[in-house]
């Protein structure tokens, strides 16, 4: 029910997104696209060229171009890569999986690191360990992902002769162990970036909860401190943490662009980056749109989880 209520606003947002993507990419003059169709004649079949012309709405006014694109997009035609003739949807399918896995692992690691350090810090506010925890949080926030990735690649490869990402990318279904190794460092880089805000949220949420009466009562009843911390304090601080995690998950999808490039992972970020560099406009346009839809969906899910966790919101 809650979902249905939000449907109209979600749909208007998606509509807005499609207009926005269209406008941003159409700053590129139309004849650039037309001429790019000509460069590799012979690569695409006449049917594919026709389908691409339809996709771009070439020879139509702007509104017509937009409608043309939308009708193709909604009917599942995301266009073709004109240098290889591969349908964009085929590329996107596998790339989506990579990015989702990356974002998921990144979030998991981020939550794990963030909550641990947040709890570590909140134990004794103002103490040396709190300072240490906060200092970590600050560094994690401030060291850019590309610096961390470059450093990891350099150190791991030169000192430890370890660089699983040099090997061809393996999906979890092809080679699980290799896949996990290839995902480890990229998700760690993303995880650290995400851990910082989660750590801060955890720390302040915990500090706030500790002051609450029922916690004092629990301590008073002689419940073991560790149990109080985990069972009562943490549980009651979950709402802000979950919210922050949801927000960060979206951030992760963006951070994936750089990490995927450095670690040679064939995800959405790298696909879009490559497409931008190769002037594959159909790929850019469709992939960004898919990405945005994913993003909106994740926000919806976060919202749903948020409602589940916090019974006060109805």
């Amino acid at each position, binding site marked *: 029910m809650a979902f249905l209520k939000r449907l109209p606003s979600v749909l208007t947002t998606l509509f807005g997104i499609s207009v926005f993507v269209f406008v941003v990419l159409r700053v590129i003059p139309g004849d650039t696209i037309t001429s790019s169709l000509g*460069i*590799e004649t*012979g*690569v*695409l*079949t006449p049917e594919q060229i026709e389908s691409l012309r339809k996709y771009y709405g070439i020879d139509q006014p702007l509104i017509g171009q937009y409608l043309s694109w939308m009708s193709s997009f909604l009917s599942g035609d995301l266009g073709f*890569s004109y*240098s*290889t*003739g*591969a349908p964009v949807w085929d590329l996107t399918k596998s790339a989506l999986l990579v990015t989702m896995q990356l974002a998921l692992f990144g979030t998991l*690691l981020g939550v*794990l690191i963030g909550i641990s350090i947040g709890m570590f810090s909140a134990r004794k506010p103002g103490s040396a360990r709190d300072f240490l925890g906060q200092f970590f949080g600050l560094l994690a926030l401030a060291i850019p992902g590309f610096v961390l990735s470059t450093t990891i*690649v*350099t150190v*791991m*490869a*030169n000192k*430890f*002769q*370890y*660089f*699983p*990402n*040099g*090997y*061809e*990318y393996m999906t979890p279904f092809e*080679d699980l*162990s*290799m896949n*996990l*190794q290839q995902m*480890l460092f990229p998700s*760690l880089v993303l995880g650290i970036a995400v851990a910082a805000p989660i750590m801060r949220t955890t720390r302040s949420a915990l500090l706030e909860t500790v002051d609450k009466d029922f916690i004092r009562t629990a301590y008073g009843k002689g419940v073991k401190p*560790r*149990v109080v911390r*985990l*069972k009562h304090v943490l549980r009651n601080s979950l709402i802000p943490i979950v919210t922050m995690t949801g927000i960060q998950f979206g951030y992760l999808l963006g951070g994936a662009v750089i990490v995927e*490039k*450095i670690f*040679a992972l*064939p995800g959405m970020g*790298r*696909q879009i980056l*490559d497409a931008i*560099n*190769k*002037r594959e406009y159909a790929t850019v346009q469709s992939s960004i749109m898919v990405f945005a839809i994913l993003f909106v969906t994740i926000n919806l899910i976060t919202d749903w989880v948020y409602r589940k966790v916090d019974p006060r919101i109805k």
Partner: protein
Amino acid sequence: MKLRKVWTGLAITAMLGGIFVGQPARAADTSLVIGSVLDIDKTDPHTATNFATVRGLGLVYGSLIEIGAKNAIKGGLATSWIFSKDGKTLTLNLRQGVKFHDGSTFDADDAKASLERILDTKTGAAARANIATITSIKADGRKLILNMSIPNAPILAALEGVNMAMLSKADIDAGKIGGANKPNGTGPYKWVSWEPTQSLKLTANSDYFMGEPKIKDVTIRVIPNEASILSALNAGTIGMGIVTDPLIARQVKSNLKMFKTPALGYYALQFNTKVAPLNDKNVRLAIQCAIDRNELINTALLGQGQVTGPITSPAFRSDPLARPCPKQDLAKAKEYLAAAGKSSGVTFKTLVTSTGWATSVAMAQNLKAQLAKVNITMDLDIVEQATYVPRWLAADFTATLANNGGRIDPDTMYTRYFTSTGNLNKVATYSSATLDANFIKGKASGKVADRKSSYVAISKELEDNAVWVWLATPFEYRVATKKLRGFSALANGSLLQLRSAQLG
């Protein structure tokens, strides 16, 4: 207590990631992964200009002639050949029992159709000009007879390489070349799949005329930078790496094998002589005089390269000192600028590839800094290789820093660029009647001594007019695991010798 267990469990899961740090699964000894920054950009061998494409397709296609060790011409799909007395007819005897990957037999009809496809201007073949003297082709059983308008000895060398790939006539007739069509060649490796920006997969051709290669599977994997390629080599995750950056090459340690050969290819600052301000010869000469090639080599290439003139073909190598301002001469550069009426300075834009080869941006930065000393402003227009190649082919630049392939014969190296009918003349932007005449003269004989004077004259004309500024020849680096045996690197960058290599 329960929660604590969950927590411990999570922590252990997290640590598992850390414990994983073992070596990644090593590929079996019959498969080789090659790391390369560049991906192939098309599958039509005749129009391929990108180094990565030429390298990749070179394993899939065969050509009539091959270049062997020490740059000697040897038979490929042709086993022997003979020129007629007047030098205007070449008869090639084709190898017997060669099969295309689809199982069909290679014969003279396929060879004829392939060469005709190259000659067809609609194809846009990269090396059309090299065989443009062919007036008619006759297929006669195992014989292929080429009739030419003028005596043309160097055409033999021109029949080498991916741009002269032999395709199946059936494929040509059906229009099944390039694009999403699976390449069907006669080379040592069969095409399996290509995932753009990911990898190209090949598998050994069991019908290959030299016998099935011992390395059964070859994967050319795109790795975004050369530092990572070296990392992957050190980690043993790949077996060979294509390295163009001397910065990386110097970090190769004794745990790896390094194949280092002086390249035939060269770096040049190409000018568009049709566009201001470079349409003024004096401006071009000013640039030529303002550049210190040794400084360029020492900084951008870390000393790994040689100063070169236009011709890099070993037997005909241009004398790098036979040029205006063989050493940097800033006073002279200023004189030329004054002669052009540009004493206050000149600005021009240079197209630079960001990914074409590792030192491109570094070279451009050094050239820019050097030219700034004489008030020449070289603006850099840095683009991805995928954008660079089409713009280069369309001569869509005022100047461009280029890494062009060299050939063992100066005729095949420059006919396409600097003859008025050359298919890349539009890119070279310069031609003249004297150049045309000298190129024709150079074809007349098969003997180096007879031909040399023509190419000295060609070199001189190009340098005196500062058509381009020829800078340096680099080295080709192939870095491989110690287990790779029987491989030899060729100066043209080809990986063809993988056909006789093995691992372990």
